[in-house]
């Protein structure tokens, strides 16, 4: 046993020579603040220096000394893992010590807002095809899944409604001014490095003003190139196939242009007939039918260039293209099991960010985006005087953001962010208004970061300016939204930290809410949310096991909820600010990970969510009843095990009873559902340097028939096979 003492003052000095040891016999002292955030000491001879200024400060504050500590974020995980395995197998004389640090775990422990993340290897092993599939494992999330490969998948975080969740793609929001929802089933995990969910808001000071402007946020971080010293390119190919007639080849290419600039190309094709059997039963009749018109054909290309000039100038440029054609299988109702509606989508965006550090205290970050979304809906069941009903919707988004951060004191950072966004929309619909919206967001945020206390306050100003080509525009709007977040270590031990936040936010009525022909109502006000959250994170390093328990309790009020109410007949719905919802919830997760032997690792996670989301609309017909599709109880369990070159993953998802409509009556009752998924990943030694990666997934192992949304049956047992090779 070797004890490495990390107390003292100074910064980054020399190497330390330690006799031959294996990783897990090293104990650390003097870094309580990180306790539980350090996975292992990784011992190697050569690795690149990679420390962000933020981490350097953290390290300096925690009195590291005498040895060189390298902190790795997840970016280097794969490299680190391989280094780790080798070194633990063969104790060697070491020249340097590297401290491997789990940035996610550190963040979830010290972040003022509750954060859940899945990244890298975990994402690969989970039985997931799209971002939506991965989000099922987070607590506090209800995935609205209409079933099948091409089905729409949106999330409802803490019963607030999808429009309150901001989805960020590499730090820039994926907007949808038309309906305020992002179909997360469209975003493949193939190019995803990390998926995170922040309640309230992320506390990163270089984030844009938009990042403050949602009640909660999902961050999607795509993969960026990382090279070993002598590499100039990496080429990875893969293919997935299985149930639903899935054929899903992908290709990823990393190319190193020079030491500072690299490029990445990621592309994939999804083709599936989407058919599956489902059971249709009321307990007396019981029939099996096939889901039809569920096919999808989609194509994605992402190309990016990344620059890093001595850690002072960092920039990224990304182009994203997605194209799809799919059938809309529709609701299953009596005597009607097949529908002919089709949808085509085309999304294009170009986005870039640039960061420059002026000395130690001042930095700027600029972000920009241009996006164009087009969709075309065809309904052969409606014949108009000009043929089948065809609707086209076209949206453009222009976005520019500037963030200034200034470090007033080592413990005090100020951020001033200004965003301008311009949205336009066109459609071939009758009486379409051709709306345009300019949104100006300014935020001033202040972050106090002491060893045992973090306080972040922000104040957001939102100005919305609406105009239309025809008819009436909605009124302009000016709103101010404050938030206050904290994280405190109340005791001497860094194992336990308390967190909490208060946030008031709103979501704008969407273009559909305001201007949709016959439905829109330009009198609409925004829908407001107010959140209070209090939680803790407790992490304990038990030697070979690491235990982490987090829990949050929250209360959320939604007022002026925008709801659709049919008018004099079912074809004449109108939007109103009519609802009020109060949610009381608890989220708990228990995570444990560790080593059973040198080549047997495991990690397990249990989550549980309780939500009481009551309709508090005064004078309403459902006052005091649980709102639709929100279960009181839900949870998940996942277990991942690695033994040598085999990885096994098991996951279980449970959603309790719910109601499909506002009235909590028997005819609206929906059964609880749960699914068991398993996957096996195997690395087969192959010609060349890298192994052939082979994976098999079985989803809904016990073939349970269920529906997340009433009359939209989900698939029973299904299989997926994948092969990946990196040249």
């Amino acid at each position: 046993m070797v004890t490495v003492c990390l107390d003292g003052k100074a910064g980054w000095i020399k190497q330390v020579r330690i006799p031959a040891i294996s990783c897990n016999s090293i104990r650390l002292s003097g870094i309580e603040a990180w306790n539980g955030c350090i996975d292992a000491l990784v011992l190697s001879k050569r690795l690149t220096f990679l420390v962000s200024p933020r981490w350097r400060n953290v390290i300096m504050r925690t009195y590291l000394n005498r040895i060189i500590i390298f902190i790795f974020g997840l970016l280097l995980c794969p490299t680190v893992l391989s280094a780790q395995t080798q070194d633990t197998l063969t104790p060697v004389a070491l020249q340097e010590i590297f401290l491997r640090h789990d940035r996610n775990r550190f963040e979830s422990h010290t972040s003022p807002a509750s954060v859940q993340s899945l990244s890298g290897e975990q994402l690969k092993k989970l039985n997931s095809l799209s971002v939506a599939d991965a989000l099922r494992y987070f607590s506090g999330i209800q995935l609205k899944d209409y079933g099948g490969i091409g089905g729409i998948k949106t999330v409802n975080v803490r019963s607030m409604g999808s429009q309150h969740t901001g989805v960020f793609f590499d730090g820039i929001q994926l907007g949808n001014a038309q309906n305020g929802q992002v179909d997360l089933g469209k975003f493949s995990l193939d190019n995803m490095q990390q998926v995170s969910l922040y309640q309230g808001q992320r506390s990163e000071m270089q984030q844009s003003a938009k990042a403050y402007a949602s009640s909660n946020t999902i961050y999607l971080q795509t993969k960026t190139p990382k090279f070993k010293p002598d590499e100039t390119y990496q080429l990875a190919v893969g293919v997935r196939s299985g149930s639903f007639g899935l054929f899903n080849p992908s290709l990823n290419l990393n190319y190193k242009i020079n030491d500072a600039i690299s490029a990445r190309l990621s592309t994939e094709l999804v083709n599936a007939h989407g058919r599956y059997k489902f059971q249709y039963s009321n307990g007396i009749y019981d029939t099996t039918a096939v889901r039809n018109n569920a096919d999808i054909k989609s194509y994605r290309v992402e190309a990016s260039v990344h620059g890093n000039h001595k850690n002072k100038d960092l920039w990224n440029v990304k182009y994203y293209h997605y194209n799809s054609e799919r059938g809309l299988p529709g609701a299953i109702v009596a005597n009607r099991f097949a529908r002919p509606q089709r949808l085509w989508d085309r999304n294009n965006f170009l986005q870039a960010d640039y960061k420059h550090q002026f000395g130690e205290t001042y930095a700027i970050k600029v972000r920009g985006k241009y996006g164009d979304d087009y969709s075309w809906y065809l309904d052969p069941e409606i014949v108009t005087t000009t043929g089948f009903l065809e609707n086209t919707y076209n949206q453009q988004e222009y976005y520019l953001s500037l963030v200034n951060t200034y470090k007033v004191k080592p413990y005090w950072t100020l951020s001033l962010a200004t965003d301008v966004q311009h949205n336009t929309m066109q459609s071939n619909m009758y009486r379409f208004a051709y709306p345009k919206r300019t949104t100006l967001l300014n935020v001033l945020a202040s972050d106090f970061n002491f060893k045992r206390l973090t306080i972040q306050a922000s104040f957001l100003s939102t100005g919305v300016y609406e105009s239309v080509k025809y008819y009436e525009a909605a009124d302009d709007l000016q709103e101010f939204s404050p938030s206050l977040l904290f994280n405190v270590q109340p005791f001497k031990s860094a194992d336990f930290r308390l967190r909490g936040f208060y946030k008031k936010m709103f979501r704008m009525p969407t273009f559909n809410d305001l201007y949709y022909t016959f439905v829109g109502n330009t009198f609409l006000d925004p829908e407001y949310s107010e959140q209070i959250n209090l939680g803790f994170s407790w992490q304990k390093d038990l030697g070979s096991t690491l235990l982490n328990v987090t829990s949050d309790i929250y209360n959320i009020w939604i007022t002026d909820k925008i709801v659709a109410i049919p008018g004099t007949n079912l074809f004449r719905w109108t939007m109103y600010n009519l609802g009020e919802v109060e949610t009381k919830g608890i989220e708990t997760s228990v995570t444990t990970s560790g080593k059973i032997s040198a080549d047997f690792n495991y990690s397990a996670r249990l989550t549980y969510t309780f939500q009481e989301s009551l309709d508090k609309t005064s004078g309403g017909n459902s006052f005091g009843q649980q709102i639709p599709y929100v279960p009181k109880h839900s949870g998940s369990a996942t277990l991942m095990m690695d033994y040598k070159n085999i990885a096994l993953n098991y996951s279980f998802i449970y959603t309790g009873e719910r109601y499909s409509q506002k009235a909590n009556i028997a005819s609206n009752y929906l059964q609880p559902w749960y699914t068991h998924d398993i996957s096996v990943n195997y690395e087969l030694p192959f010609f060349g340097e890298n192994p052939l990666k082979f994976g098999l997934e079985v989803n809904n192992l016990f073939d349970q028939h269920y529906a997340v949304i009433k009359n939209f049956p989900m698939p029973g047992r299904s299989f997926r096979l994948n092969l990946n090779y990196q040249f």
Partner: protein
Amino acid sequence: MKKISALVLIFFGLYACQSDDPIPDDDVQNPGGQNPTSVAGFYLLNEGNMSMNKASLDYMDYETGDYKRTVFSQANPDLVGGLGDIGNAIGIYGSKLYVVVNGSNKVEVLDVNSGKRIKQIDIDNPRYLTFYNGKGYLSSYLGTIGDPNAPNGIVAEIDTTSLNITRRVEVGRQPEELVAYNDKIYVANSGGYSPPEYESTVSVIDVNAFTEINRIEVGINLHRLKIDDEGDLYVTSRGDYYEIPSKLFVVDTHTETVKKSFDIGVSNLTIHKDIAYMYNSEFSFITGDYEISYLMLDTKTETILDQTYISEKDKNLIEMPYGIAVNPETDEVLITDAKDYVTPGNLYCFTPDGALKWSVQTGDIPAHITFNYE
């Protein structure tokens, strides 16, 4: 490891089995105060929201005073999918009850007493029906699904003995309500699929030849069509929901021309003993809410009466009137309340003096009523 597996096991144990399907909402309500006449009772069809597959059938038995819900699914528990999606119209002819289920592309033919299915008639996008000389006549929004050059609707003839569709005739686009009178069928065309290109005519069909013989120019986007004892049609026009307001037209079937029009909106109406009982619910851009009015019209003099059929104090009971019927014997007015359309509605019964007599809870979107004669 063991601890984890134990935890996992507990977790499963807790939820390892689903509970049984709950019993449907079949509780019997008895509001009391019924006086049976030759009218034994009435069926009420709840539309249910689109895609929810929640159409349901209720029955009021005047003899016992019992109001039973979900009588279709109780009489036919083994029919896949139940009654279906969007119950759009209902009618009794002979000993059979016909239920038009728009979203399920079918007409259910039931035994009027037992509620058991006799036959299902498949027809795309059916809307309303009427009966005449041993035949049922059904309007349907589209004659052919899947043909981009066939925007017109049809009226289908159903033989009430064989329960087959025997003849079809093309009419205007998206036909709605219809009546049969004097060997002719009058059907209101809406053209609702192609705004702003609405239809503005009532199609006239010769029953014997089963061909369209005339189109009477009335007003745009027609919907309701009722007939009085003198053979005058009362036809509602929904306008274009924007600039062109809703209206009520009176069409003389003898001359096949519009003889009178009223600048009032009518959402729904029923004619009983020379009185049209009407209501209107319309969005007001001044109050930002729905304004609801209850009107009576004398069909003999064709004038609007300055009296109403619901007392002032009871008007506020009704959030969103959606269906109306008058008991042919007792003159009691039945009005359904769809409320916010996503919760179970109510049915109110008013005495001929306009006082609330009783009320019951219905299914979602209670809409269509038909009386059952002994």
